[in-house]
């Protein structure tokens, strides 16, 4: 295969891989913001702590990172559920209007960010940590990719689609969507709105944790790594239209490919490029590409 085709294929697969992770993170945040109305600045910290958890489970207990998905995911779901009940639900009771709740929940989640980062610092220290899993190369039409990259891509897409189907088909999914559209009417129809909001927050945290488990296979871990993922998730949910789950899924892949293209030419500018696109979009079409 000619050199240029291999390069393009490399960028494309890299972009899809990055996009798959981004899509998971953004879907989680979209659920937290779109339904529970919490712009969770600590979203990336759930990714970070789950990645460290996987690191320890793999290096100390020898548990396969893919098995960690079904251990860490549900635990984070419960933790997220409890955080919403004990913190954000209380905030929503005290807030005089939705704008005041949005502002105070941003600040509260910033407090959460501090707490989780400090826990990670105490547990794992400030140094970078990494482990190697499924690192052997796989040949696809002449281009060689590490196996873990492909595994991550497969899982990210699979979990993303499954999550979307869960929201679209299941009973809880329907309750969640009704709560997103009109909380008051939904509660009149017998939806336990407070429980649904807490479940949404928990599911959002779970998606972050799943992304964290997958990321830990490829990225060196550090307690300060979470913030950049929060930034990226915010960009994507605005890109895809605030609260739109399919918008976040597609937006994640779009941003992943854009990021990989920019990285190919000027690696240190990829975050800046995301922001540039994001600001441009906010100015031209604040509702997002898929927003109504």
């Amino acid at each position, binding site marked *: 295969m000619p050199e240029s085709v291999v390069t393009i294929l490399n960028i494309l697969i890299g972009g899809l891989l990055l996009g798959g992770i981004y899509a998971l993170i953004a879907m989680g945040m979209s659920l937290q913001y779109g339904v529970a109305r919490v*712009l969770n600045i600590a979203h990336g910290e759930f990714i970070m702590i789950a990645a460290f958890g996987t690191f320890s489970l793999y290096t100390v207990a020898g548990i396969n990172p893919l098995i960690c998905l079904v251990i860490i995911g549900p635990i984070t779901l419960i933790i997220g559920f409890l955080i919403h009940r004990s*913190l954000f639900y*209380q*905030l929503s009771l*005290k807030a005089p209007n939705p*704008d005041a709740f*949005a*502002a*105070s929940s*941003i*600040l*509260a989640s*910033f*407090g*959460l*960010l*501090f*707490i989780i*980062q*400090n*826990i990670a*610092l*105490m547990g794992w220290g400030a140094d970078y940590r990494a482990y190697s899993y499924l690192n052997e190369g796989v040949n696809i039409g002449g281009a060689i990719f590490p196996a873990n990259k492909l595994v991550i891509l497969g899982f990210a897409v699979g979990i993303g689609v499954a999550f979307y189907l869960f929201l679209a088909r299941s009973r809880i999914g329907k309750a969640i969507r009704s709560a997103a559209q009109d909380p008051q009417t939904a509660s009149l129809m017998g939806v336990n709105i407070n429980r649904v909001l807490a479940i949404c927050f928990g599911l959002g945290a779970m998606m972050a944790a799943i992304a964290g488990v997958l990321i830990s296979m490829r990225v060196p871990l550090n307690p300060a790594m979470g*913030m950049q993922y929060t*930034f990226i998730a*915010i*960009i994507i949910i*605005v890109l895809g239209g*605030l609260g739109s789950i399919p918008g976040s899924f597609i937006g994640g892949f779009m941003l992943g490919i854009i990021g990989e293209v920019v990285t190919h030419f*000027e690696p*240190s*500018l990829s*975050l*800046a490029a995301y*922001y*540039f696109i*994001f*600001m441009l979009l*906010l*100015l031209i079409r*604040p509702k997002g590409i898929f927003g109504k």
Partner: protein
Amino acid sequence: MDVSRYKSKGILIPGLIGLVFLILLATLPFYITGYTVVLITTILMYGILTVSWVLFSGPSGYLSLASAAFFGVGIYVGAILLPNTGQLVPLVVAVILGGLASGLIALGVGALTLRLRGIYFAIFTFGLVILILEVLNWWEHTVSHLRGRFVMSVDNDMMFWLMLGIFVATALTYFFFRRSKFGLALQGIGQNEEAAAHSGVNVTMVKVLTFALSAVFAGAAGAVWATRLTYIDPYVAFHVNFSFLPVLMAIFGGMGQMYGPLIGAALFAYLQEKLQTEFPEIYMLIFGFVLIATVLFMRDGLVGVVEWVIRKLRRGGSAVQNADT
């Protein structure tokens, strides 16, 4: 001098208290030295950031998270004009230019973005900090080939007086702005933007100019802060804490009264410094819980707590009177 004119507006007493306090503060380096002066300089810095944030976001209700961007621009201007190899301009000029640079950026950003509302504005201003950080980082790595910059160090007392000067300018501006036609117009925008526009307020102009004005003070403080840091890189200068802490300090103090943000900034900054030096291991943990407790239990801040106590006392007093009669 006709005192009654001032008295009727009710600024004589607080003005006098403020003046005495200011004289005490300004002469501080003569009888206190070392760490305390440094600590108070830090508190003043946070005071400037908080009050300048409240100046715009308080009345207008637009949650700005751009403080770190304006502060960081000031820091960079300070670092460029006052390198450790020899200062290019006098200190005061660097401070003024730091303020102006931030103000200009805020003017441009404000004109572009202030039609965004609610959460979009908050997200955008937050993004601005990261955008400037990343572009600057790239610039320093690939164009100027500097990882960071060394800044000349300035005498602690000098730094204190500069910071105090900026602080007084910020506080006075805030005080008079709140009572001015401009300040009332901004308040009107915060309550109902359409109604304000229909009553003849040039909504865009008021918002953009106030936004820029608030950025000037943050930038000026940044230029002084550069000499405190002595070594800076984009990650230090544009740290997101400088966006969130002013908001938290303002809420902590309470925005219902003029003095709320000032007290909030002073107490909060003191607490932060103490925690950071005495419990560096768990500083963020304690800090996080304090933040959450503040938004959960002190919606109207310290001012709210004080007013609540006063109300309770008064009600208690009147109840006793009623029982007597």
